[in-house]
Structure formats: C-alpha cells, structure tokens
C-alpha cells in the first residue's frame, strides 16, 4: 500500500446525526467492555467490596438490626444491589478521567465522530458491567440465605429499576470526572456524595429509628426510593408510591446530568 494522501472524495456513509451518535457510542462501549476482562483487578475489587458488605451486615450487624417481620438477609439484599450499582458510578468517573489524562480524548476529538459518544460509550459499558456485578451479588445473596419471592414481572421491574439507577448515577460520575479531571481526585470525590446517600437510606436499617431531620432526608432521597421499590418487587410485596418516585428520580437525574456532562465534555474537549 502507499501512504498517499486522500485528496479526492472521501467515502463517508450518510446517515442521520442520531444514527452516528448511537453507532459511535456502541463502538466505544465495545472498546470499554473488551477491556474489562483485561484488567481483572477492577472487576474483582468492584465485586469484593459488596461481598464484604453482605457478609458484614448479614453476620456481624444483622443480628442486632430489627426490620420488622422480614428476615434481615431478605431486607438487606435490595440495599446491597442498589449500593453496588450506585458505587459503579465511581468506575464511570475514573475511566473517563483516565481517558482524559492519557490523551485518548484528544485523539477522539480529532475524529469526525459524535461528541457525545465518549460519554454514552462509557455509561453504556458500565451498565453492562453493573448488570454482571448484580448477578454475582444475587448468587452471593442466595448463598447466605436470601430467598426472593418475585414473579417474572417483579424480577423484570427490579432489574430494570437497578439498571436505570446505574445509568443515571453513571452520568453523575461522568460529570464529576469532567469537573475534577484527575483520576485520584475523581476516586475520592466520587465516593463522597455516595456515602450519605447510601447510609442515610433504607439500605441497611429502617429509617424510623433515625432522628427526625435525618429520616426526612432518608425517606425522600433517590436511593431509598429505589431500594424500597426493588425490595418490594423482589419480595413480592406492594410497591406503593416508591415505584414511580424511584422512576421520577432516575429520569430527573438523567434529564439534568446528561446535558450537563455533555456541555462539560465539550468544554473540556475544546481546550
């Protein structure tokens, strides 16, 4: 072959902008997914942490926590699933910050690809990764005595809600990465907002025992809504208002954070 310049007509397939935004997003999602088995440490640590939480709460604290009529392990697992996918948002941020630091984003911005693809590719890949980790956690849960009683619809609803939360929190993680840019900063900042949301929630304990002001926060924040909805779905109980509140929270986060992070990305990439 020659290295002659392509000065003539360039062969570009014509499709709508939206088509290319999706196609480019999938090219990058694939890139992020093939990397997962090549950096096994990341997946192992993403799994070990929630496993430790399961063991800790199931066997250490669980005996001292009263959750009404339900067995504690049945109560706990919805919290674990939600915590697991929520913490996945840190992975989104770290991955994106690494692409920024290593100059890959510079390569991407020189290509005639959709600007949004770097973000959609990352968040979609993390969605798939989270689905895998939740599956592992389900097996761990069943091993320690978790007995879900959901029908097909319940499972579909619970998994759908978990994925929606995973996707929406990933965009928050991406926004943080674009603000911080360095992997180390993203690593710490990425957890700071997740801790209060995780622990001041119904993940591990019922919120009734919290002081009034904290209970007000805990009862109305998105993670509690998703946890309560997922728990009810998995245990075959009535979902009540938690379902639509969880849905509203997730969609609201997406509506705010997708445009926000795309705007930030354009600004970062324009430098």
């Amino acid at each position: 072959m020659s290295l002659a310049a392509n000065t003539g007509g360039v062969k570009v397939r014509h499709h709508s902008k939206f088509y290319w935004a999706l196609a480019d997003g999938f090219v990058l999602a694939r890139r992020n997914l093939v990397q997962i088995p090549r950096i096994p440490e990341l997946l192992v640590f993403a799994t070990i942490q929630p496993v430790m939480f399961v063991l800790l709460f199931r066997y250490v604290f669980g005996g001292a926590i009263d959750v009404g009529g339900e067995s504690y392990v049945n109560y706990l697992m919805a919290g674990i699933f939600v915590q697991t996918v929520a913490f996945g948002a840190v992975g989104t941020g770290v991955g994106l910050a690494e692409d920024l630091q290593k100059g890959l984003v510079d390569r991407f911005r020189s290509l005639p690809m959709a600007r949004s693809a770097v973000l959609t590719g990352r968040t979609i890949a993390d969605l798939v990764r989270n689905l895998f980790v939740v599956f592992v956690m389900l097996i761990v849960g069943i091993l320690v005595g978790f007995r879900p009683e959901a029908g097909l619809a319940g499972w579909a609803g619970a998994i759908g809600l978990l994925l929606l939360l995973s996707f929406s929190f990933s965009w928050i993680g991406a926004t943080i990465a674009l603000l911080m840019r360095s992997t180390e900063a993203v690593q710490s900042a990425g957890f700071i907002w997740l801790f209060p949301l995780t622990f001041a929630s119904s993940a591990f304990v019922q919120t009734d025992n919290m002081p009034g002001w904290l209970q007000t926060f805990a009862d109305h924040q998105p993670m509690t809504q998703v946890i309560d909805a997922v728990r009810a779905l998995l245990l075959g109980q009535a979902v009540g208002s938690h379902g639509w509140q969880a849905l509203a929270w997730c969609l609201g986060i997406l509506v705010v954070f997708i445009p926000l992070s795309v705007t930030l990305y354009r600004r970062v990439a324009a430098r």
Partner: protein
Amino acid sequence: MRHADELRSRIGLTGQYAAVDEYLTGRENLEMVGRLYHLPKREARRRADELLERFDLVDAASRLVKTYSGGMRRRLDLSASLVFSPPVLFLDEPTTGLDPRSRIAMWDIIGELVSGGTTLLLTTQYLDEADRLADRICVVDAGRVIAEGTSGELKARVGGERLEVTLEQDDGLEDAARVLERYAYADSGVRVDAERRYLVATVAGGAGLLAAVVRDLDAARVRVDELGLHRPTLDDVFLTLTGHAAEPDAPGHEELRDEKEIA
C-alpha cells in the same frame, strides 16, 4: 466552526504523547479509529491490516498496547492518524523520546507521506528533524515567530561556515591559532578551547579552503587530530536568533551543499 466534522475527516493529528488505548491490541486500536471515521467494519479492518504491515507492527498486532515499546506506540499512534489518509497531517514532536533507530524509521515514514502528497505541519524541538523533514521552517521563541523560511534561508542568516580543528598535542595551539586567523572571516577571530585542544573560526571560502588550511597547518608543524568545515546547523540558527540581541546581517557567501568533514 461550521463544517467541523468535514474538517476532521480531512486532518490527522498525532499529539506529543501516544494517544492509543493501552488495553486494546494494536489492531483493535486501528479498527476502532476506522469505525469512528465511519468506515464500514470490513473496510476498517482492511485499513488496519495495511497500516500494521506498513508500520512493521504485524507481529505485535494482537498484543495489548501496554506491552509495546515507546517506538512501537509512536508508530501505532501515527498510523492511527493515517487511517483515513488525511491530506493534512499535524504532528506534535513525533520523535520525542525515541531511540535513534526508531527516529530514523519515523523520519522515513514521514518523508514518504510528504512525497505522497500529504501536507504536514510538524512541531519539534529537534532542529535536525526540522532540517530533514520541512520545506518551510518557522522558528518560534516564547510564543512568537522570530524567523521563517527554508532551511537554507535561515542558515544564510547566521553567516559563514565554521572551521573546527582539534589538535593531537597542547603545544601547537598558538601556531594553529595563527594559521586559522589568516582564514577567519573579516577579523572575526579564532576561539580557542585549550582544555579540549580545540579551535574554531568562522570562515567564508567553501571546501576549497580546507586544502589550503591543511597545507598551512602542516607547514607550521601542527599535528591535527580532527579538522572539519561545518555549515551552520539549525541549532546555530536558533541560538543566533534567540541568544543575541541583533547580529549584523549575514555576509554573502557561497553555501556548501553538503557537509564536508575530514577526520
């Protein structure tokens, strides 16, 4: 920019640091870039194979890039910029940190690109690189363009050739200095570095001068270890342009086409 994507499909860019994905193989990197240029899958694969072959990366094509050497990364990075054979190519210090062999290999590839019709905009700290690859050179100091022209034009601004002599023994230094002074351009004098037994003078006379200098040194019984006539390098140009406030205009002189050196 109104036609940003159209512009992006006509340029290639290689930054200072190899912007390739460490956890993909060489082939996967190139295929990904091809897909992001919106080439069909098969076309992206074909182009990746071509480039891997051309850049001598076939053996490493299925290895993760994190196992690549610096030179291999650079070659992969450059080939990623060439997936779409862009008519305009931007290279930012393409050989920084490369060993001499990789550097020369890179220069050969760049030379071939340029003769294939690619317009190249290259930034470099290595002036020999600019000398070798560039038709027009812009010298930038502290963000300002301080000189512009072909390599020959720039060198002409510095002035004559340098005549450099290194002696075998210390005791001939004074005699040698007297000889060189006769040839020094317009009383510019001779600089002597006694420790290295080294003398240098600016001369204007071309290669023909060398024979005369050798004869005179021989007559003065100076034993010469090394004697050479050097055309100014771009390094000299850069130092002259940036180091001194204002040099008088370069004297007119015949320019040596090839560097001549007698050892």
